[in-house]
């Protein structure tokens, strides 16, 4: 694996703008993820979460802005990608391959040696109870099991920065718990995590800090406690804070009334 500057922040995003044609998906956002931190990116559908994460990993070209991973600009594509473990929102792997073949391909690209790869693989496969599906074509796996393949592939090289886009979708309760534990353990040993989620309880329980993104802009950022103070809602859950910050609270009330009527 590429050696990295442990003193540099795992992720710095400054003035990021992402456009699809004339549509501005991400509008000048800035944030930082520190070592040992789990940063939650929250936002309604189409807010720009996935676009932000895809830009960090290099799947989408930014229109403007700066992104650095452990002090390296994302233009150092190979070095940056070597330091990241990524789980996409929509898990589309190579369906005709088996998990064994797919992971062999991934570890080959990541230049992992057989011993390191297999030691970690053994642990991950056992943790996610995945052994029996190891030679089943990915096309024949359930959504949750495909998600497990993506999770294992993302963690296999023990990356210092994890980028997880809705990683819990499709996972059963047991695997969700395992992944959450792994993420927490990863942060405790100094790694960094940025993940997007719709599940507020998970964000509330797991994240060190959250950034709330709405219409491409970060409209609130800090710890859950800090956000509570910011929106003057000392008792409110993260969900209430989220709705207030994204100015959707009134809309929700009106919608419920309309539905009840």
């Amino acid at each position: 694996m590429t050696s990295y500057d442990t003193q540099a922040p795992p992720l710095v995003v400054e003035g990021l703008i992402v456009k699809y044609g004339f549509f501005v998906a991400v509008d000048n956002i800035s944030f930082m993820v520190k070592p040992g931190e789990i940063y939650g990116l929250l936002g309604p559908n189409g807010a720009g979460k996935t676009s932000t994460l895809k830009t960090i990993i290099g799947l989408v070209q930014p229109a403007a802005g700066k992104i650095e991973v452990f002090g390296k600009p994302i233009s150092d594509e190979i070095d940056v990608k070597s330091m990241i473990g990524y789980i996409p929102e929509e898990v589309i792997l190579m369906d005709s391959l088996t998990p064994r073949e797919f992971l062999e391909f991934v570890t080959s690209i990541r230049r992992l040696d057989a011993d390191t790869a297999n030691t970690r693989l053994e642990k991950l496969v056992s943790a996610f109870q995945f052994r029996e599906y190891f030679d089943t074509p990915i096309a024949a796996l359930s959504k949750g099991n495909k998600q497990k393949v993506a999770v294992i592939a993302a963690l296999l090289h023990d990356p210092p920065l994890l980028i997880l886009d809705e990683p819990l979708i499709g996972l059963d309760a047991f695997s969700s718990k395992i992944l959450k534990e792994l993420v927490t353990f990863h942060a405790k040993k100094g790694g960094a995590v940025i993940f997007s989620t719709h599940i507020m309880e998970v964000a509330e329980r797991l994240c060190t800090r959250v950034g709330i993104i709405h219409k491409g802009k970060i409209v609130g950022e800090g710890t859950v406690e800090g956000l509570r103070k910011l929106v003057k809602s000392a008792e409110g859950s993260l969900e209430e804070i989220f709705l207030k910050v994204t100015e959707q609270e009134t809309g929700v009330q009106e919608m419920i009334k309309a539905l009840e009527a």
Partner: protein
Amino acid sequence: MELLELWRLSKKVYKEIVFQSVFSLRTSGAVPWGGDAEKSINTLVKNAETNTKVSKYMTAFFIGFIGVFIMFAGPTIEVEREMASIYSVSTILGMVLFIIAFMGIQVATSFVSSRIADLLIAFPVSRRDVSKIILMCFIRIFDIPLIASTVIIPLAYGISYNSVSGAVTTLLSIIVTEIFALTLAVFLALFFYSKVMRGGGKSKWSTFMRLIYMLVWIVPTFLAYSIMSMAPQAIILMKTLAQNASYTFSLLYPFSFGFLVSFMTFFNVSDPKILILSLGSSLIYIVLAAYFFKWLIRRIVKIGAGEILLVSRGEVKDIFISPRSPWLGILKKDLMIASRSPSYFSILAMPVIQAVIFGFSTRSIYASGEAPPVLSLFTFLPLLIMTSVMISFLPSTLLAIEGTAHSYVGSLPLKKKSLFFAKTILSLSSYLVSLFILLMIILATAPTLASIFILLGGIYIFPVFSSIVFEMMVIFKMSGGMLPSGNLYSRPISYLLPIAISSVATVIPVIAYFAIMVLTLSEVLSIIGLVTISILEFAIALMFLLRMKN
């Protein structure tokens, strides 16, 4: 629900199957959302529909053309009209069986794997109606070819032999044949799906078996397309077979129907035994067709409902993986995917299959072994050009494999150099295998010319290498440095320019050869020109590769 409404609804479901058949590997991960994505996806959907329509109309055209040709060519054979009728009907039945079964197999495989019921389950449609929709979808897959054969062939027979009763019996035999063909297509699709697409396993043996199954699957499809040129030989073959053992063949399909149709046309009983045998066996085939028809309906409904597909979980002995160097990892993965995807495998195998066909069809030119070197060059160079043009379809196809899981593969530290290296090696391997096959044919037919062929084929590695590299560079340039999305089947227009550039790169050295030959009439100078341009192209391609940053 009314039949008309069900038929309309089945069109929507059918469109989804068509989309899946063209995208045997999905591309959605590579398509961004926003304004461009909608246009892009619409283009992909439109291309999928157009491809399928073209394929259906081509099949219908083949059947129609062959039907008319055979029915009108039959009476021109120097035999009695009764006999000509037997040969014509037997030939066309055999061909219709082959064409419908093998041309429809790819869509039938998608039908098998599509789980249509999943799409319909959310609608307020009864189970009975779901079954009807599934059946209608299946009919839509084959509608035009089936209509073409049902209408054109009996009509052509009726006109050619001036017989209504003969035409009606031909119609009956065509219906039986269509049922046989559909049964064969579904049987093969099921077999293919269970053995190839869902076949995991890490052993070399299972990989080898997948390749064999794939060949069994692909080669007849190629043959189905070239069957048009075989029609005259097929009639002669049928004639020889039927003449030599009339009693036996009157029992066998499709000859039994040939004899029956002939009798129903001329009502001339020259040998009552043959009439009884053919009538009896035809009746058995009709009963068999009725049974197959029932089996087909039951099976199609089951397939649509996903009842036959179970997740295969074999016993996993170990979970050991063997990482390799990146380029080898890419190469191995590409081969694995190609061994399970008909669209990728067919493009990978095309140069080799073409080498076999062209090698044999051009052997008469140099087979005497006395052809002068110039004639050999004039024969071998076009052979090599044809092979390299086929090779030019490979880089884009192989790059498209990466695009299928772009949302994941794009996040890997994948060096462009490794990618180019792996794809170049694989494409070149296909060229070398084709070269080897051509060499074997030449060794068998004109061994004295083998050395010239080796020399030319060897020189030609340079332009082939360059064309592969140039093509990939253009593709990357066109997709803004990202991995391309969609394969050759789904986005044919996007790949036109890269493939054209690649083809030009392979042709330029040959043009130089002929130009120098015309200008100087010197064979030595022409070959020097060929070698120089080839090496120059190679040097440029190599320079591009070496200057690549990652």
